[in-house]
């Protein structure tokens, strides 16, 4: 009994000690600007969560080693407090609350995925804490009138509408028939809305409009329909599993479709997992290393990719690149605001107009980045079966010519 009491008092002593020491963190300590982020280090988003974290860390190191942030004639360095949100929106919201009210963080970086960003945004808004996020593209984030949310990436509805335009262009400007298969989550449904807009705009016709379940690992039924109805374009969006399942079953079922457009190809490492079967797939991407945007910190995409490869041992997916860009935006805003006042920093963020290696960044009143188009790349393989992603649209950034229509399986 005595020992129990002893242990209990010991634990409470430690708890009290911890809780008081935590408070000593604040927005700016000494020469450090402390940013907070809840990131999915475990749970279903953990791989993309790690990409996000690596992107943040890479930018923090780079900015700090290149002189840091100059505010009021003094130089500050970035530091990030991370918490693991376990890929759980409720947990993410709790952690945001904790970062702000307990740890005293006054500037936030976004989590991974639209769903988690949606959970955190009301919290940061409530406290008036500016948040620059790089991984929540859902359109609904930007229609709520949030004043403190800024996204460096293009919204989800712009992901695949380019593909429809491209198909119409290849069809000599005549409308096309479109088959769609979208997962039922906020992000994919936003992508769908964008595609629907494009279909309407071009006078095209949708022939299949399937919704895919969350536990998707079989879309044979959709593909059989595609086979029978022979649309001009097949559009698929269902995160990594959608991309992997689609490619596997299209190859197995020998589905011939002139154009196949998807999301999440690089996160799914399509060409690595499927090799030649993934050839000719068109993929929407926020960023590609061959784009020629430039900045002073990472130079350009190729240099960023090389540095990232050296540091983390893999080619950076766009999730990392956009996360790095978020820090560049913060640095720029702090220096222009020349203050750590939340309101002033917020106004400086809203007035952002800059180029980074990731793309141009300029925020609309809703918070989304309106100055950076999406790119489409196509998986292209050489004779030996080595596959590469090459940008084919928009034409301004294209490093290869679009192969259209996709050769029939019987001719491959």
């Amino acid at each position, binding site marked *: 009994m005595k020992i129990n009491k002893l242990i209990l008092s010991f634990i409470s002593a430690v708890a009290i000690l911890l809780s008081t020491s935590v408070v000593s963190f604040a927005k700016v300590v000494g020469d450090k600007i402390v940013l907070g982020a809840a990131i999915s280090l*475990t*749970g*279903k*988003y*953990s*791989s993309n969560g790690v990409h996000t974290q690596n992107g943040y860390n890479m930018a923090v190191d780079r900015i700090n080693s290149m002189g840091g942030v100059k505010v009021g004639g003094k130089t500050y360095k970035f530091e990030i407090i991370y918490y693991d949100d376990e*890929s759980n929106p409720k947990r993410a919201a709790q952690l945001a609350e904790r970062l702000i009210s307990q740890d005293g963080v006054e500037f936030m970086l976004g989590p991974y995925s639209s769903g988690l960003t949606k959970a955190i945004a009301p919290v940061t808004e409530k406290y008036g804490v500016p948040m620059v996020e790089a991984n929540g593209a859902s359109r609904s984030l930007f229609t709520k009138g949030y004043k403190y949310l800024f996204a460096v990436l293009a919204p989800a509805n712009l992901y695949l509408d380019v593909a429809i335009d491209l198909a119409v262009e290849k069809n000599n400007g005549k409308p096309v028939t479109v088959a769609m*298969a979208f997962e*039922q989550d906020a992000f994919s449904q936003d992508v769908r809305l964008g595609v629907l807009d494009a279909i309407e705009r071009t006078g095209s016709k949708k022939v299949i409009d*399937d*919704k*895919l*379940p969350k*536990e*998707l*690992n*079989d*879309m*044979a*039924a*959709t593909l*059989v*329909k595609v*086979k*029978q109805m022979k649309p001009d374009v097949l559009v698929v969006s269902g995160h*990594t*599993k959608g991309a*992997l*399942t689609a490619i*596997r*079953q299209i190859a*197995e*079922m*020998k589905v011939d479709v002139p154009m196949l457009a998807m999301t999440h190809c690089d996160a*799914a490492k399509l060409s690595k*997992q*499927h*090799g030649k079967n993934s050839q000719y797939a068109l993929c929407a991407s926020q960023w590609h290393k061959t784009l020629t945007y430039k900045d002073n910190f990472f130079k350009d995409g190729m240099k960023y990719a090389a540095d990232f490869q050296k540091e983390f041992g893999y080619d950076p997916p766009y999730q990392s690149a956009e996360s790095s860009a978020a820090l560049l935006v913060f640095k720029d805003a702090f220096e222009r605001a020349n203050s750590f006042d939340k309101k002033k920093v917020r106004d400086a963020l809203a007035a952002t107009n800059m180029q980074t290696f990731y793309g141009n960044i300029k925020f609309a009143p809703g918070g989304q980045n309106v100055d950076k188009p999406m790119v489409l790349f196509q998986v292209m393989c050489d004779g030996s079966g080595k596959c590469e992603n090459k940008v084919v649209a928009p034409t301004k950034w294209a490093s290869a010519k679009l192969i259209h229509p996709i050769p029939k399986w019987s001719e491959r």
Partner: protein
Amino acid sequence: MVFQYPMITVQACLDGLLLGILFALIAYGMALQWGVMNIINIAQGDLVILGGYIAYFMYLYGIHPAWGVIVSPIIMYFIGVGIYKLVINKVVDRDLFISILATFGISILFMQLMNFAFGADVVLANSGYGTTMLFDNNVTLPNSKIFSAFISIVFAICLVIYMKKSKLGRAIRATAQNARAAKILGVDTEKVYAATFGINAALCGVAGALISITFTIHPYMGLPYTIRSFMIVIVAGLGNLPGVAMSGMGLGVFEEFADYILGTEFRIGSVFLLLVLILVYRRFKLSRKREYLK
């Protein structure tokens, strides 16, 4: 749509049958341990996914994933026995609710452990088996699906023979009929239970390896397999292998048609709905039977 394109009907039936055979294999494992130990294993689907990861890792190391159907059940057997020794043996004589809770806990634990160990990426193993085309290319059957169905049948047949002929098989059946009597007659029921759970895990291992070849695997994708096998067993009853096979194939075809007619988004949902309907129907039938008895 189904009437407009008759080939879709053929395709749906064939796809459903091949898929159903695979489901039946998982369900058979569940029926076996349910019958013998009176345990409903919520972690069934997670064992399947774990089996899939074994095949996937063989594939990563350059071994053809088809060998997974041999290696995976062996490893899974020992994992199954391990789980039994650690957890299940403590709940085997208790009521059903406790065992459901225990296996539910195991399920969550497995999901998180797999996520921790293998990452949250969706993965698959490529068999490179190609495709069989029928009816002027209008119906396509991936050879991997045919392979899956074939292997499932082989394992099911082997198991039936084993249960009939071998000493352990007879002991398992005896325990299922009456554990106390079997114990009195010298059957080491503890061992039988461990072996049953191991065999179930091994069947899940085979199925998992096949799923990694035909579909995709992901740490959180186990639950739909648990539900499907639960349903098949409910329909077929315990200890009724032909019934399990038939209801498995029936479920496969039902799913495919639900997919075509209602849309892919209702695929899993329709399975759940069917489960509810069957449970209600069963209850209704039972209550009528009870009235006769009165």
